[in-house]
């Protein structure tokens, strides 16, 4: 099946794919700084360079860390917890 081949093709070149992704991310931030009109931003922080990139990354890390901390504080239990 061609779809499997395509995924295989990309997986075999994982390093290149990852590198391309980094380039795309950098381009995205640069484009945001140079070309995007921030006239309609609602707050001052949104005018910072790459504010939403930072928001995405920090938000993601915070969610993972806070949730895992919460889970390990007693919320996560073994699977047979409710069995009598």
């Amino acid at each position: 099946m061609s779809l499997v081949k395509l995924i295989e093709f990309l997986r075999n070149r994982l390093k290149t794919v990852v590198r391309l992704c980094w380039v795309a991310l950098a381009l995205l931030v640069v484009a945001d700084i140079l070309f995007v009109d921030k006239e309609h931003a609602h707050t001052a922080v949104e005018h910072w360079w790459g504010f939403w990139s930072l928001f995405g990354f920090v938000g993601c890390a915070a969610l993972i860390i806070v949730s895992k901390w919460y889970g390990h504080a007693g919320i996560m239990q073994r699977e047979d917890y409710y069995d009598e």
Partner: protein
Amino acid sequence: MNSFWLHPALILILGALVLPLLPGRVKKPFLLLVPVLVFARVLTLTPGSFGHVSFLGWDLVFGRVDRLSQVFGYIMSLMCILGNLYGLHVKDDRQHVAAWFYVAGSIGAIYAGDYLTLFLFWELMAFSSVFLIWARGREESLGAGFRYLLVHVAGGLSLLAGMVWHCNTVGSWEFSLTDVQHATPATYLIMIGFILNAAVPPLHAWLPDAYGEATFNGSVFMCAFTTKTAVYALCRGFAGMEILVPLGVIMALYGVVYAVLENDCRRLLAYHIISQVGYMVAGVGLGTQMAVNGACAHAFAHILYKGLLFMGCGAVLHMTGESKFTELGGLWRKMPWTFVFTLIGGLSISAFPLFSGFVSKSMIVAAGFEEHKLWVGFLLMLASVGTFLHTGLKVPYFIWFGKNQPKREVWERAAEPPWNMNAAMALASVLCIFIGCYTPYLYKMLPYPEVAAEYHPYTAYHVSETLQILLFTAVGFFLLLKKLVPEPVISLDCDWFYRMGGRAFLTFARKPVQAVDTFVGELYRLGGLIPLMLTARLAGLFDNYIIDGAVDGFARSVRRLGQRLRGVQRGQVQENLVFAFGVAAALIVAFIILANW
């Protein structure tokens, strides 16, 4: 009304009653025909008020057709087609019948013009959908089903109490926008009934409990109807109710936090329903025309992409028998198309540009910013980080890639699902992309089309903002991948209170209550029995000679009737429910038909 007004729900109910009688060959076409007819009927509805019936002096309205009910009626009946296509190969009639009654309940509630009709269909939803859980047949499904039913009955009671109180004060059963500025206790009771179905914490634990346990296609139906019918009811009755804004924002984040911990892919998706419905609830609470548009648009888009996601994970469950991340991994070789479809669902829910979530979710966030509720805007943005993190990344990664190697038998069972499941997923995918690319399709259906027409999601700023958030979330995901590896655990949620509370009650009933019962029984035997025997002997004489003659004939006929009834009353709660349910269905049909003559 003199002319007959065909209620779309009536088509489904009649279809559900006929389905089990049909021979095998015609069943499959019939399973598609009925939902298509319902969809066609919804398309031909004209605005107005139909299906009036006088009941005990009250005016019940079965068919209120306006822009708000039409957008929900449209998507519900469309989803019913997709759900049936997906489960077309399922041989178990009970599931199809339950699903149709369930959809009928949802559509009936949407077109209901008064509280009594709303309540009737509201309960129909709960009592029919529970069979989609039981149909899975596992021991856990039985318990999950009963818990689901109990919680919904409690919510229904709150709704009923509120309705009756409200009707008593206002003097009418009419279901319309309540006076949200001057909320009374009755208003709050009704609202509790609604937000329980919308799964607002702490009244939400039934949702992951039930949706993770239903059959693979049962969940596809369930994920669409209950919560979104509640969103409709909130839009109709509580637009502008301030308290819904913080509740919605809490929901949006709550679902995300639990999704980090979850090991079962369908329970993860269920937690993301809570999160997504949070956006809608917040939109309803904001109450501006744009926000209500946003809530409706997001409900519309959500039904499709969440259905698609449940179809994808349902396909994995159906083919491999597993839904836990710790038991799955590397399936891209076996189920590549299911992967692509699920990914499309994931990109849609994460609001990637060109996918459906992008054009609907942003409307609510924008409405929050426009109302100068900055915290609403930012926190909802944070929730969308979590959405992409789980549904867009965690689900596809840990099922189709990841380091985990599933057991040999799981690996051998894995394969692409039957054609109809693929077709349903493909259709849903196309719709998700179509909505995202061609905005007028959805925007013209919204309750305030003029406001929607002025909203443009595809501005450079919005696209750049969204792409940055999402792609840098992906960076965070891959950098913190080790922390995210699923663990074979369950997470305690608010259902702990009634699960453990129920157990405590049982212990209480077994020990102290039984001791008291024995004690009272002993007292009764000593103090009551001797005088009783004496009276009984006298009564016996009277009875033997005078009463018996008259009663014997009557008793014989009662016994005969009793024996017949015993056939249906074997003490099996589920059987009794089916029986009660059948009677209720017959009554509804009678009502609707009477209403239209």
